[in-house]
């Protein structure tokens, strides 16, 4: 039988998805469905006075209008936070604003009507008496004395102060440094913009008290748990959450949002299904945003380029409320990454999480790790420049050598494996560095400004050990579940706690199962996204589906194989130890002629007419895989740009990415993930920018002015891989979903700064738009 692992088979889900036969939440039609529309605050900060719904109620088809007060009176509790830090302030976040609106777009009331048009018409007629208050949209401004307070119970707008590393050791490192390189960085805010907007359909069954919620969720069990146990008080076993086909998430569909809580509550009030689908405007205003840091960073170096210490102080803008995993992102997913691929012996990082009058910020593709990688890789280039070193040499000088693993960093992580120089070498084989520097020199003489940027990144993903996460404040475990069920005919249903919203699990997971059980891949179905079918699982984010989800499936297949072998041995009247499982058949070693097929064994498992003594019938196995560590993908990205002197326009000229993702199940799918990630990372460097004006109005709140990456702006990406399998999971796989985003932003920014180096420009904050570059170039000759 052909091995499927490592094979670029086409995505089995694509024929369905690309021919319009997918089944997304908004496609669902159930009788008597009503439609919700939200009244949203146009102001960033306002006291809510009287809400007059008289005119709205007169719109034909309107069934109900609920305000924040109605929900509170009806027993709705605030949406909780899933990751707590010491002394963190967690102000109440109700699904509908009660006393104050704290960001533009915050829902204030919900209209439920017979049609979406009637709901929207009525929402326009709800009159809210707003007493507009001063707003503070910027994280650094929010800390200033006299800044408008976001919450009364978070003095100074501080949610938490967190630190990691050894401050004293870091001070000592700086004291003995030959060179200190200092830079402030702005890692600006982004808006995820999954292709499918968020949607939900809540259907309460008054007869049984059961409720089904279809929702665009990356983790349906987490949705159910939080709604049931915290927000709505529904017995968990009476609620079923189904997340069917979902069009992307990038993290934004991890979280529990106000709209689905309100829809579930309204459905129970009305005993009718309630549906809501966000429009793109709502996606901009109400999906959790990403990034938004102000950082002061400094690196202490010896004269030979060896890093002695790193000191980082970051203000993380959390938005108006703490979104579900917001506290983890700028702390444990950020500060712990500051060692990167380097031997930096002393690191200290302080993070202040602040409230502002903006949309809440949470995990967005990469989540903390792009922010860490950006500042670290920028500092590597700035330091090289200061010391007169080549950016490649300074990296080599500081790489953790391959014989030092496992490697304990000064910021908590224990790296399991790695060969950072190996990836760099491979990238340099593809990219002729010397030839480029010659070309750059020639071009400069003609007034053309080429630049190269390196990003020798490392990331931690495959989130991961439940015990560690719990000790750090996670209010959840981070294992994954799998139930593999072999049917009597030998066909296989796999129930996974992972969730696919573009990742291709129906293909890659089936590849693993087909190999292990030696069955045709067409005999394997992957079922996910339904709490009614799938064992309790944690879902997909943090590049965990492969290293945690697929590993759980692998564990179940081993249990199945073990039992199947017992049955086969019994049928062959042989000793189990002598039976082998090859080419889809069980036989006694050396006598393949006398064999039992997987079908024979499966059938007997369920007929149970002739099983080994004491063996239970059936062929099904449940596993929960809780890995002992994160996995640590790494690699080298090289970007070449040309900057137009007279306009500041950045042309991408070349992009080489060498990633080490461990063993790769489906190279084509992984290539696609890396491509997409690079596009998003490049886009942060050059185009995307969520901007608020001083009143907290989102001024880039549509596709007309928020620039997502476009195919014609990008260039072919040259991909290659090294393969250092991780010992953390039985498949040796690492996460592949976020590396592109984590690595590429710094590579592009470094390339632009290299291009601008003849002008003495060291740093420009992103996005590196033509306008910003031109302003920096103004009056500078070359």
């Amino acid at each position, binding site marked *: 039988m052909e091995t499927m692992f490592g094979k670029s088979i086409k995505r089995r889900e694509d024929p369905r998805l690309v021919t319009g036969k997918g089944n997304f939440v908004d496609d669902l039609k159930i009788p008597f469905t009503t439609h919700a*529309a939200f009244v949203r605050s146009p102001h960033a900060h306002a006291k809510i006075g009287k809400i007059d719904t008289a005119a709205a109620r007169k719109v034909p088809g309107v069934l109900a209008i609920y305000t924040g007060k109605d929900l509170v009176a009806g027993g709705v509790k605030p949406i909780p936070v899933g990751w707590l830090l010491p002394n963190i302030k967690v102000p109440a976040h109700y699904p509908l604003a009660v006393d104050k609106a704290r960001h533009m777009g915050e829902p204030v009331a919900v209209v439920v009507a017979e049609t*979406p*048009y009637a709901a*929207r*018409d009525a929402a*326009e007629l709800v009159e809210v008496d707003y007493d507009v208050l001063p707003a503070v949209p910027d994280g650094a401004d929010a800390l200033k004395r006299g800044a408008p307070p976001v919450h009364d119970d978070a003095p100074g707008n501080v949610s938490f102060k967190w630190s990691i590393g050894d401050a004293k050791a870091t001070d000592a490192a700086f004291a003995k440094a030959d060179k200190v390189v200092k830079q402030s960085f702005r890692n600006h805010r982004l808006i995820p913009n999954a292709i499918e907007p968020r949607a939900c359909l809540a259907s309460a069954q008054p007869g049984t008290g059961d409720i089904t919620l279809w929702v665009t969720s990356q983790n349906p069990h987490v949705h159910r748990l939080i709604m049931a146990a915290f927000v709505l008080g529904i017995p968990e076993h009476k609620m079923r959450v189904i997340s069917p086909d979902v069009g992307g998430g990038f993290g934004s569909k991890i979280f529990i949002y106000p709209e689905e809580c309100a829809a579930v509550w309204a459905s129970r009030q009305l005993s009718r299904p309630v549906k809501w689908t966000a*429009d*793109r*405007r709502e996606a901009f205003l109400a999906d959790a945003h990403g990034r938004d840091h102000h950082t002061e960073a400094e690196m202490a170096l010896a004269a030979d380029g060896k890093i002695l210490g790193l000191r980082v102080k970051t203000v993380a803008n959390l938005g108006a409320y703490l979104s579900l995993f917001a506290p983890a992102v700028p702390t444990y997913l950020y500060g712990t990454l500051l060692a990167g691929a380097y031997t930096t012996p002393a690191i200290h990082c302080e993070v202040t999480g602040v409230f502002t009058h903006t949309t809440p910020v949470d995990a967005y593709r990469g989540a903390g790790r792009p922010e860490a990688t950006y500042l670290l890789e920028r500092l590597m280039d700035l330091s090289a420049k200061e010391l007169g070193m080549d950016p490649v040499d300074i990296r080599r000088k500081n790489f953790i050598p391959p014989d030092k693993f496992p490697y304990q960093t000064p910021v908590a992580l224990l790296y399991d494996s790695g060969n950072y120089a190996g990836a760099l070498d491979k990238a340099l084989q593809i990219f002729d560095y010397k030839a480029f520097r010659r070309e750059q020199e020639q071009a400069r003489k003609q007034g053309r400004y080429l630049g190269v940027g390196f990003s020798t990144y490392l990331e931690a993903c495959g989130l991961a050990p439940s015990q560690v996460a719990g000790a750090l404040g996670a209010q959840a475990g981070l294992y994954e579940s799998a139930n593999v069920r072999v049917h009597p005919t030998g066909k296989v249903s796999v129930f996974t706690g992972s969730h696919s919203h573009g990742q291709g699990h129906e293909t890659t997971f089936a590849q693993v199962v087909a190999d292990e059980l030696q069955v045709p891949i067409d005999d394997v179905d992957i079922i996910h996204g339904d709490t009614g079918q799938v064992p309790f699982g944690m879902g997909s984010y943090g590049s965990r589906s492969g290293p945690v989800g697929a590993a759980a499936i692998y564990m179940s297949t081993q249990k199945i194989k073990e039992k199947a072998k017992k049955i086969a041995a019994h049928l062959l009247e042989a000793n189990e130890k002598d039976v082998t499982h090859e080419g889809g058949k069980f036989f006694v070693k050396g006598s393949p002629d006398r064999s039992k097929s997987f079908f024979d064994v499966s059938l007997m498992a369920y007929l149970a007419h002739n099983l080994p003594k004491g063996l239970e019938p059936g062929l099904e196995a449940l596993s929960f895989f809780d890995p002992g560590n994160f996995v640590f993908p790494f690699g080298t990205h090289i970007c070449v740009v040309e900057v137009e002197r*007279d*306009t*500041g*326009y950045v042309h991408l000229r070349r992009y080489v990415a060498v990633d080490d993702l461990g063993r790769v199940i489906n190279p084509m799918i992984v290539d696609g993930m890396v491509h997409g990630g690079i596009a998003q990372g490049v886009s942060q460097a*050059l*185009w995307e920018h969520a*901007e608020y004006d001083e009143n907290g109005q989102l*001024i*880039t709140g549509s*596709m*007309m*002015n*928020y*620039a*997502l990456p*476009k195919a014609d*702006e990008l260039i072919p990406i040259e991909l290659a891989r090294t393969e250092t399998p991780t010992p953390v999971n039985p498949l040796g796989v690492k996460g592949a979903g976020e590396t592109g985003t984590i690595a590429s932003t710094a590579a592009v920014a470094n390339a632009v700064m290299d291009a601008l180096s003849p002008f003495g420009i060291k740093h420009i904050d992103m996005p590196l*738009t*033509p*306008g*910003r570059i*031109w*302003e920096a170039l103004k009056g500078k000759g070359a």
Partner: protein
Amino acid sequence: MYAAPFEYHLPTTVAEALGLLEKFGDEAKLLSGSQSLVPLMKLRLATPGHVVDLRKVPGLSGVTESGGTVVIGAMTTHYEVGSSPLVRTKLPMMAEAAGQIGDTQVRNLGTIGGSLAHADPSADWPAVLAALDASVRIASSRGERNVKVEELIVGPLTTVLAPGEILLQVRVPLPAGRYGGAYEKLPHPASRFAIVGAAAEVFLDPGGKVSNSRIALTGIASKVTRAGYVEQALLGKAPDPAAIKSAAARAAQGIEVRADLTGSAEYKANLAAVYTERAVKRAVSRALER
């Protein structure tokens, strides 16, 4: 996104459409390719009581030549304009501009007349058509009139079109002599409207000197604007790179340049000069090929 309630009309003649406009006055909006009005309606930024859809009115689309003028029906899509053999051979600047509007969907649905009537200050057609000295033909119940494109647009999203009028045609006089045109644009990374767009039509005399030019800019001011100082500076000059550069440096002179999220007024004035230089250079090389 759900638009506010409106009444939809589908007339089948110009006269019928004019009758509807007469009847509903300010309440009525004409619908052409649906690329500007419909997004505004979905956002409820536009809430017309009556939408008069022109798609079933015959004779409003297509590209023809008549007596030295290229006549383009108002309902002709950007794609149709850009792929018309007549336009491609005789007015290449229009073809290259058409290919840079929005994205494929916008080009396949959006129309030249709709774009002009919408009058976005960063749209491509106004600059190109001003450089080509084009006019529009406008019908109302009182008869028809011609207006130069430059005079049609008076400000952001504002034209001289009265509520009872329909833009029927775009009329581009075919240039004579030794001429060349080019359009150069820096597209906004999100919308693909022009951060700056420079359209240049340059005429050369038998001695190779500039006998006339029309240069129009979009994206930098509240409406399409002629770069008069550049035209003046080029007049009578041999259009060598140095002369073009020094003339183009005056592109934004006399224009009230708007700053926006893409950059300062100073930056946009600089872009106007750079893109004018690029457009004039290519226009001249096209003229020299004739």
